[in-house]
């Protein structure tokens, strides 16, 4: 469950938390785009490192490390699969050793996890909903989206309790071959799904009893407004994007293999 921990918002105040969520999302998209554009190790390491100051300023390093730990399993899986393909299939750029391209792929994955983790760790669900609404997304969709985000940690906690309850009845989740292990999760999944459905029905009832959807045109108590820090952040993001595109198009990046030999 540690992966979920890495995306769970905590109410703290920092200059990163106060940034406009739309601006933060733009930044995440820029990082995303640049990470996809490069398959060399060096720029990806650079992308990974430039986000660390954000993490430190927002003081979410503990959660951030947890999300990376959670992602490291999948990252090593990506590395192994790509390495096997590169080594046995010979499908990798000629300027690199067979290990470099797989390394870049898992780094790329880590950069993506890292940026989304920073975004979700520093953006409250309320802000996210506001950002969606002010981008003219219909309110029903915004609400469904934020509710889903908000209930992930609740469900994770509930799954843990259910696992405990079934373990106390002698269920051994880690036993048997792969198929048996998948089947072991049925006693966990059924109560979880039933309770999620029950919970959503209850939520619908409590919302309707508070006149949800009574007025077509909603107004908000808080309205998002761009501040000077937001404009700086937009400039930084666009600068990064231009830099990324420029480097991609006109500079040939040396591979680690070339640097090392």
């Amino acid at each position, binding site marked *: 469950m540690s992966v979920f921990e890495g995306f769970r918002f905590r109410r703290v105040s920092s200059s990163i938390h106060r940034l406009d969520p739309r601006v933060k999302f733009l930044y995440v998209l820029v990082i995303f785009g640049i990470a996809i554009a490069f398959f060399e190790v060096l720029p990806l390491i650079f992308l990974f490192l430039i986000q660390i100051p954000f993490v430190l300023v927002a003081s979410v390093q503990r959660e951030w490390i947890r999300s990376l730990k959670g992602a490291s399993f999948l990252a090593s899986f990506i590395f192994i699969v790509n390495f096997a393909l590169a080594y046995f299939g010979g499908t990798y750029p000629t300027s690199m050793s067979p290990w470099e391209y797989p390394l870049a792929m898992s780094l790329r994955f880590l950069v993506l996890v890292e940026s989304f983790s920073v975004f979700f760790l520093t953006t409250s669900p309320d802000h996210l909903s506001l950002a969606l609404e002010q981008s003219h997304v219909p309110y029903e969709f915004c609400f469904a989206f934020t509710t889903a985000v908000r209930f992930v940690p609740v469900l994770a906690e509930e799954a843990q309790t259910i696992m405990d309850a079934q*373990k106390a009845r002698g269920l051994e989740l880690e036993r048997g071959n792969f198929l048996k292990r998948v089947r072991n999760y049925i006693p966990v999944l059924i109560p979880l799904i039933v309770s999620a459905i029950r919970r959503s029905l209850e939520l619908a009832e409590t919302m309707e009893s508070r006149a949800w959807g009574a007025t077509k045109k909603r107004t908000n108590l808080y309205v998002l407004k761009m501040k000077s820090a937001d404009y700086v952040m937009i400039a930084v993001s666009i600068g990064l994007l231009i830099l990324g595109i420029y480097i991609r198009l006109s500079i040939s990046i040396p591979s680690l293999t070339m640097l090392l030999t």
Partner: protein
Amino acid sequence: MIEVKDVRFIYPTGVEALRGVSLTIRDGEFVAIMGSNGAGKTTLVKHFNGLLKPTKGDILVDGVNTRKESIAHLARRVGFVFQNPDHQLFCETAEEEIAFALKNFGFDEATVGTRANWALNLLDIEQYRQTSPFMLSGGERKRLALASVLAWDPKVVVLDEPTIGQDFEQKEKLRQFIVQLNAQGKTVVVVTHDVEFVADCAPRVVLMAEGKIVADGEAKEILTNKELAFKASIVPPQITQILLGLADFGLPTDIIDVHEAGKLLLSFLKEEVVL
């Protein structure tokens, strides 16, 4: 027998839930663990069947350190009934629900059948043998959850908040059942806030506050102690509160039994009226 030796427990989130707890529960004892929300009651009992392992200190169940045993092995000795039966029920019929744990523990087919029968009868739910657990009422689900644990006959039964959301009749049934279970020699551990329930059962009471044990003794002496109750944010039983209020008249205040208090008050009133 469960031995808790200076146990500390820190959750991965950094919350220190237990700050040095030592406790011995002997065979055949009836123990109620009480205390406010977040005092560490549930955290403590989750150590008894190995669901949690202590950060520091040791827990011995029948002399076996819980660090060295799997949960499944420990669960065979220590049955745990969770607060919310909906967290464990998932089978198509009540009978299968009971058989689930028995099969996990490797009982043979014939034994699974007889034990399931026995447990269904014990908790008075044999008429729901073929009913889906999701169709049962709250009280029945609770009893089914209890039956599914008792079926494998663990030496120790831990019940987490058994009285929550139960009406008076269900609660009374449950109380009688638990007392009977204990009388038959089972070690019973109950985690609860329900002061009246504890007063009726009169077990040994372990009072917790902020991850520590603040008192340990007879229900009668602990539930009637105002300072202790305040510390662990519980209130003495209503009948004790009356007697505490009348303390100036020289009435005893260490009574939690309603019948006993009734007799006492009656004789007190008679004396007053006669005088």
